[in-house]
């Protein structure tokens, strides 16, 4: 990847923090988000600044363990630890933090997080299949809208919501186009590059500049691909990573896979492809938002057929040679769901499958390396 683009990305990331600070001084409210179930459109429509909150690094976990149990998922511990140690600038900026009742660990952690910031917790249904679930969820989002109206003093009209949806849909389209570059064989972009770009842009307060930058990166990669440039070869194994979200600080598995000579071409997770489901712009905005967000195929849903549907599509479209399913330690829902994902991948596609359970620390790097290399030996056979 062009060095200049990474340089720009870094500059814009730093500028972003200054911009948020400035906007806050001018009286704009900041709303912090953790999870893909929370509708950022509500914040955008109210003229507030939606920000992603930190939770992908190992550093604050030790501090979090003073309060939280050790045998809890690192994502929850990291999120809490950042807040407790006041080391996430976006958390510090937040006037309101949005939680949601996804897994047991997260929903109880949000109760503790209320010590540091006002929390609005969305009550998420555990299923997508009954009508009751959607109307319950619609009602929850409506309540959230009312809360944001109260915090910002802005009436969130349907028109404002529609504008917000158009903007976030554009962002999804740009992100999807970026991820789709890896459909080329060999992929002109590495999984680590892709992850870095998406992760950093994810913090941008200005959605439009994020979209513009992603479009620019796509053009750049397109050029590179047309000249036959790629960090990989025609025969480099193409790996799909499924399971828990990964970001900078928790990308060790992606790094190990690519160091062992493979290419991570697709992320079937909340930091990747699950984040680009479009919102229907023709429907009543609040209902369209409720439908789109509830359809997110996370393992907290029971049953969770959407993950299998998405995997079916992605394995084909990205010409995948093997599937790695990543579970954060002590994440029961992904850990258990892995059994069915493995059966599905092997029976439907006959592809090698590897389930990894790990945390954010580096303590098991060598053990992971053996598993990943042995898995890639299977892929190559």
């Amino acid at each position, binding site marked *: 990847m062009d060095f200049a683009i990474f340089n720009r990305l870094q500059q814009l990331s730093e500028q972003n923090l200054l911009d948020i600070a400035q906007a806050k001084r001018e009286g704009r409210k900041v709303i912090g988000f953790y999870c893909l179930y929370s509708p950022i459109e509500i914040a955008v429509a109210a003229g507030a600044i939606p920000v992603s909150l930190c939770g992908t690094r190992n550093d604050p976990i030790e501090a979090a363990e003073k309060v939280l149990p050790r045998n809890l998922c690192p994502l929850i511990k990291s999120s809490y630890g950042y807040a407790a140690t006041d080391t996430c600038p976006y958390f510090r900026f937040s006037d309101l933090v949005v939680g949601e009742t996804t897994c047991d660990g997260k929903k109880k952690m949000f109760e503790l997080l209320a010590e540091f910031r006002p929390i609005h917790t969305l009550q998420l249904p555990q299923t997508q299949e009954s009508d009751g679930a959607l109307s319950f969820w619609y009602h929850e989002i409506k309540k959230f809208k009312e809360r944001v109206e109260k915090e910002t003093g802005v009436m969130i009209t349907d028109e404002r919501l529609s504008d917000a949806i158009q903007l976030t849909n554009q962002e999804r389209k740009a992100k999807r186009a970026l991820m789709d570059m890896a459909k080329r064989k060999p992929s002109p972009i590495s999984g680590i590059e892709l992850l870095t770009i998406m992760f950093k842009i994810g913090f941008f307060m200005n959605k439009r500049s994020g979209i513009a930058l992603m479009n620019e990166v796509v053009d750049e990669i397109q050029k590179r691909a047309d000249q036959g440039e790629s960090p990989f070869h025609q025969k480099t194994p193409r790996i799909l990573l499924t399971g828990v979200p990964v970001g900078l600080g928790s990308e060790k598995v992606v790094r190990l896979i690519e160091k062992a000579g493979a290419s991570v071409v697709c992320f079937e997770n909340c930091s990747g492809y699950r984040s680009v489901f479009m919102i229907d712009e023709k429907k009543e905005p609040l209902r369209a938002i409720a439908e789109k967000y509830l359809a997110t195929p996370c393992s907290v849903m029971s049953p969770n057929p959407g993950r299998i549907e998405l995997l079916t599509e992605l394995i084909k479209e990205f010409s995948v040679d093997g599937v790695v399913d990543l579970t954060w330690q002590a994440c029961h829902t992904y850990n258990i769901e892995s059994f069915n994902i493995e059966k599905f991948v092997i029976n439907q596609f006959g592809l090698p499958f590897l389930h990894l359970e790990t945390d954010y620390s580096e303590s098991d790097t060598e*053990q992971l390396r*053996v*598993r990943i*290399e*042995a898995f890639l*030996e*299977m892929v190559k*056979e």
Partner: protein
Amino acid sequence: MRAAGIDIGSRTIKLVVVENGQMIHSAITDTTHDPLEQCRRLMDQVYFDKILATGYGRHFFETHFEAPTVTEIKAFARGAKALFPSCRTILDIGGQDTKAIALDDKGNVSKFEMNDRCAAGTGMFLEVIAKTLGYDLDEFGKEALKAEGNIQINSMCTVFAQSEVTSLLARRQKREDIARGIHMAILNRTLSLLKRVSTTPDIVFAGGVAKNSCLKSLLNDALGQDVKIPENPQIVGAFGAAMIAQELQNISNSKRKFA
């Protein structure tokens, strides 16, 4: 053409040299604090034309000697298949990890699992408990096999199991019955790993712990089949690595380089 395989494990390093598919040399040494020097020592004892490394130390070997590498999984698969062409499942219990590997009918790995975060149920665990009971490793298995009773051991963590054994001894329990209980605990742990991967016959039991006669007998009873144990179960990985080296074209990192 002589091809060598070196398996750099956590407790021991194994070197095997093959010529025309036949093993003509094998040696084992302790890994110690200086595995590189131990590798050199092993390699000085024998002539070979090329070498391939496996085991947890394969990457430092690769860096120092420009040797190709494969994982233990692949090396054990190749080695076990060469020794027992009917092999479909491999159980390897080494110094600090346990592996179960399923092979397809061509001998390729189709699934594997490893227990390597903790020494429970591995060679290390056996060593610690044998010592606590005052046995040497050889006696440990034999005495456990002869035991009439079986005292259930509840802890599988090396540290906790050791203190459990100590308190059983303080209560004047027979040490062979405790030994039997320890073997039963390892058996159960091993079976659950094996069942997640495969129990398709033939099962080849490799690694240092395969020398333990009690565990072999317990496995045979529990699985309803005779597990196959190589003559020297510790060198299966190194043998597999040598067999793979033999097939590799374009590598000639002859011994001269290592001097």
